[in-house]
């Protein structure tokens, strides 16, 4: 019983980081209907930059987190302005191919910069914390708190601020937003920047718990896609709830259902949602545009 409670708690904590990763992805999709295949590489760059700063240059973890998140935000903004904006109005396959090629380029650029090997943040939040007789991961507790904080902050920004409202306007009714005087293109740059920032921050938060390498994006982006399919494409709240659910399922599934079925359960869940509830838990109704 204690073991199960411990697993549930660790799964929930892991879900918090998935939320940060998936919310960025879903935000980009919600605003411009672009599926960002390079999202995993943003995560990998975040993690590796974080390792370089913290381990290579002795920068405190939280400072590195802010620096890397800002850098990846600027990178996302520029990427949208320079490349993705050009195909935003084209057929979806164009942006898919474009972000896929960006992802390939980033993986190889990462290998050139950091080499193909694996890195980590030894000694950063590496222990366990006893909570109510359970052993919880220090790294996951810290990451959960920061990830949920950041996700909440972005949510607040979208709900309250003028810019956030403009983002939502472009997301929901791009034509009306444009005639109302919102510079839709600039809003899209900003959105991609925001998504990039969230992925970069998620990368830094993951560096203390997982091995980081230029190809790590592929290991995690599939989970981000699972999260947004379960939570609902384009829905910010959906991604949050979906992520917590996926975290719990991933960590406890194998223990409860046996490893063979447990490892498949994530994808069974994804296929189930695609078949029976394609809009996910909270998703926008998918309308052909």
């Amino acid at each position: 019983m204690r073991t199960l409670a411990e697993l549930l708690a660790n799964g929930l904590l892991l879900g918090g980081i998935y939320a940060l990763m998936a919310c960025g992805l879903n935000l980009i999709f919600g605003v411009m209907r672009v599926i960002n295949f390079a999202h995993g590489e943003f995560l990998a760059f975040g993690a590796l930059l974080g390792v370089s700063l913290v381990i290579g240059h002795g920068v405190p973890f939280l400072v590195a987190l802010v620096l890397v998140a800002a850098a990846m935000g600027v990178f996302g903004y520029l990427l949208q302005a320079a490349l993705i904006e050009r195909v935003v109005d084209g057929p979806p396959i164009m942006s898919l191919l474009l972000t896929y090629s960006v992802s390939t380029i980033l993986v190889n650029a990462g290998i050139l910069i950091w080499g193909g090997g694996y890195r980590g943040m030894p000694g950063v939040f590496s222990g366990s914390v006893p909570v109510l007789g359970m052993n919880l991961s220090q790294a996951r507790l810290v990451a959960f708190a920061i990830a949920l904080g950041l996700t909440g902050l972005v949510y607040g920004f979208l709900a309250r601020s003028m810019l956030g409202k403009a983002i939502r306007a472009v997301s929901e009714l791009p034509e009306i937003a444009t005639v109302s005087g919102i510079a839709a293109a600039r809003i899209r740059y900003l959105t991609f920047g925001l998504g990039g920032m969230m992925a970069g921050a998620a990368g830094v938060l993951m560096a203390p718990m997982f091995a980081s390498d230029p190809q790590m994006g592929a290991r995690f982006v599939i989970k981000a896609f699972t999260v947004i399919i379960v939570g609902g494409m384009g829905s910010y709240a959906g991604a949050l709830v979906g992520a917590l659910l996926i975290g719990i399922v991933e960590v406890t599934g194998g223990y409860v259902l046996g490893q063979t079925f447990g490892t498949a359960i994530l994808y069974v869940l994804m296929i189930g949602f695609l078949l029976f509830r394609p809009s996910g838990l909270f998703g926008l109704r998918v309308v052909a545009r």
Partner: protein
Amino acid sequence: MHMFRRMVLTEGSGWGAVRTRATLAVALGAALVVAGGLLPAAAQKPVTIGAPLALSGNLADSAAHVKRGYDLWLEEVSARGGLLGRPVQFQVYDDRSDAATAARLTERLITSDKVDLLLAPFGSAGTSTASAVSEKHRMVMVNIAGASESIHQRGFKYIFQVVTPVAYYVEGTFPLAAKAGYKSLVFVARDYAAARDMEKAIKIWAPQNGIEIKMIEYFPAATTDFSSYIARARDLQPDIWVSVGYPPEAIEMIRQMKATNYLPKLFVHNGVSQEDFLKATGKDAEYAFGMSLYEPSLPTKGNADFVKRFKAKYNYEPGYYAALGYAGCLILEEAVKKTGSLDQDKLAATLRSLQTETAFGPYAVSETGAQTAKKGLIVQVLKGHREIVWPFTQKTADAVLPMPAWNKR
């Protein structure tokens, strides 16, 4: 395609530069020798060794070490006067870490470049496909780093293994466990062919050593969270946790074991013997056991010298990939010298009966060319370094068992 062509050209020009320098040396040498009235050995057509190798793609990082092993040997063999009195050159092509490309390049090396000798590409998948091509052409291929047993279970007559077959990586765990009186193990492995080979070996060795197998589980590629396996192990309380897979999994297992305050008495993973593991986990790496094949401290024939020269040339200590590349060339050299010709059937017969030792370790093969002499090593991270703890005859330190709990360090 364009990319591929460029890679080959770049690579070719690198060797071309070596050739240009060699030609100069040859010209100079020839002038001297002719003056002396002797037949100039070096003026003969060079012996060409063909080698498809992963110069790009996901294996490139590992294969780069192999190539440095080749390069170091090439320098040495040239200083020794080449092979059969002829100079030696390499023809290396980039297989982009792709097994099908490796096979295609092997075909090209044999039929179009007409190379004299062949080295296998990096890894089991490429070695498997490329050796099917060389077998068809009755060309000898030296299997450098293809550890999968299936390569040598196809009845081939021209493929000879230098690396230890994968099942034997784990062998040393059992004498260590027996010495400490351990009685149970769990096996948690990445789902790939090598692990299935290892499972068979464990099922033979564990009962022989009075060890009960409490769990055998496979996880798919891209698994990053091992909490449920750790939780199962916490319930089962095995003495030993054996894992085989890639380095990130070793890193994540150790981190997650520490994060949930769990540790078996003996944790052994092949990834522990990679430098990345030490760098990524820091102090948490301490006391972990690794399956290894080669360490710079190994007291094998010529190893101290190899390590010294390798370090002088590349500024780091060779790992097992570099040692394998170097050893593969040395074995080929010895076999060619012993045979006295490049006749492939005679060379195959020599390689089948050859018993020798290189820096990597002993060499002897079975009828099917599978490596039989070279054992795996078990290492333990002690004070930040990998120490050999098995075979006991080659140990550089005594194993510390049980591994001290996280809160007692």
